[in-house]
């Protein structure tokens, strides 16, 4: 019961929901950059929410299946194929033993999530299987996957996974892969750029000068190539502060937008530091962080001002759409 990495791609890591409860010891939360795609992928194969999946970045891997497996690939489009046929996204698919899943370059979005029924069976480190690259722990030996790596799978799958697996394996193999004639909507991909990301004024918003306060919400920002899982660096007009008061290191959050001395904002992403001393100009709405995570380097974004209440409403709407997607899959199986 395992997967084998034939070709690792640019940056393929094991991730789950994240490592929580230890931020007071500086332990970075990590986890999937696009938490929505992660949850859909796990939900589609009947996994519990905390199952570990593969996060695939910009240039995808080739993966050999050493056993039959129920999988779902969600998030960015990588032109995935299986036995020469396009692999349908956002739905459960049955992969056969000794077959390969091949992915290419990301054509829409930048990160995809491959969930396998049961999840990846690596030992959790400090409560999570997420890979934390800077300190080399979690995932597989704390590093990105390489050719030849073997990833064991949890064979004690959920009853729901088993039911879906059996339902697909009893299907006669028709023209396509064994799957259901239904797919979940992609909720986080950048259909049109610049994408619009909602953000609230941050704690130090008033420290910036009037031009900077306006520019943050007016400018089109470009994700710089040195962006990573820790933060997205944005190119655009440099944001100046009214007076440069030194700020004491204080807690930072997923989606905090901080501005270092060069005036170019950094949006803190999944591997964000737990505390930081740069002024915070904005906080991105929780519902929009996964959409920002799907922007590739060079991608463009505009920030739209919102209130705490509006951000909460975005989150409720997103939650409803995800729940509706997973409910309608259950219907697809009953048919």
């Amino acid at each position: 019961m395992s997967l084998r990495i034939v070709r690792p791609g640019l940056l393929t890591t094991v991730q789950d929901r994240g490592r929580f409860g230890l931020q007071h010891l500086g332990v970075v939360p990590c986890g999937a950059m696009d938490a929505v795609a992660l949850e859909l992928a796990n939900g589609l194969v009947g996994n519990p929410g905390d199952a570990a999946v593969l996060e695939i970045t910009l240039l995808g891997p080739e993966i050999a299946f050493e056993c039959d497996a129920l999988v779902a690939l969600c998030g960015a489009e990588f032109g995935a194929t299986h036995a020469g046929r396009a692999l349908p996204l956002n739905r459960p698919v049955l992969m056969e033993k000794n077959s390969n899943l091949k992915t290419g370059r990301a054509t829409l979005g930048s990160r995809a999530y491959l969930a396998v029924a049961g999840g990846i069976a690596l030992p959790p480190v400090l409560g999570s299987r997420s890979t934390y690259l800077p300190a080399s722990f979690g995932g597989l030996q704390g590093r990105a996957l390489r050719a030849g790596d073997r990833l064991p799978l949890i064979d004690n799958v959920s009853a729901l996974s088993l039911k879906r697996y059996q339902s697909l394996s009893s299907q006669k193999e028709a023209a396509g892969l064994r799957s259901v004639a239904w797919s979940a909507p992609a909720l986080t991909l950048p259909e049109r750029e610049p994408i619009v990301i909602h953000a609230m004024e941050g704690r130090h918003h008033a420290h910036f000068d009037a031009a900077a306060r306006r520019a943050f919400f007016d400018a089109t920002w470009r994700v710089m190539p040195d962006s990573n899982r820790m933060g997205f660096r944005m190119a655009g007009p440099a944001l100046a502060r009214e007076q440069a008061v030194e700020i004491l290191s204080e807690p930072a959050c997923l989606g905090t937008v901080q501005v270092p001395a060069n005036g170019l904002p950094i949006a803190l992403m999944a591997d964000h530091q737990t505390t930081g001393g740069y002024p915070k100009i904005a906080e991105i709405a929780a519902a929009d962080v996964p959409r920002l995570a799907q922007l590739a380097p060079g991608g463009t974004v505009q920030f739209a001002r919102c209130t705490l209440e509006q951000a909460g409403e975005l989150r409720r709407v997103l939650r409803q759409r995800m729940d509706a997607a997973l409910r309608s899959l259950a219907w697809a199986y009953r048919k």
Partner: protein
Amino acid sequence: MYAEFGETGGTAASGGVDLETNRSLQALAAALRARALPWIRDVVPALCGIAVHFDPYHAELPAPMLPYFESLLQEAFKSASKFEDTGRTVDVPVCYDQVFGLDLPEVSKRTSVAVPEIVKRHTGNQHLVLMVGFSPGQPYIGGLDARLSVPRRATPRILMPAGSVAIANAQTAVYPYETPGGWSIIGRTPLRVFDPARDPASLFAPGDRVRFFAIPRTEFEKLK
């Protein structure tokens, strides 16, 4: 003073770092954790503020959040016991040889304190962990001798070696990992600051007392 903190957390902050405030924040953190609210993911006491991170999709998340959070903080603050430190004292061996203490000459020049005297003052004081943050296990330690207070370096170093003991303003930091940094390096410890396979993983926790003691290079190599 309460301030909102994005949508997935609340934060409260006071004006500056002082031991009194820092201690009451740590007591507050303990009181919040004691409630074991299922939607709270992390309680992070910092130098002069505290953050509560929560799961924005948790079914039991109270709505609206803001007034609830405010009263939660106030209540926890009232019920928080007087600060008691962790009761632990962490003894940290440091080799202050110039080969490790890369910025000792500069610190000496800036403060007009001779290098041996810097070592004496750094090891003579009892210190207190005010916060652990930035990267796993990295302590911000208060209680630096006032004479040794130096601002951050104008140009940060691209690489601070792991184990570096560095000072800035009124604090000492010990770097668990090789990272960029703007603090002045005065020595290096052979101890592993953070090890996920060890229990506890972090050598330092907020509220720990810290004593630095000088070791020669030979001892450093032995302990390494």
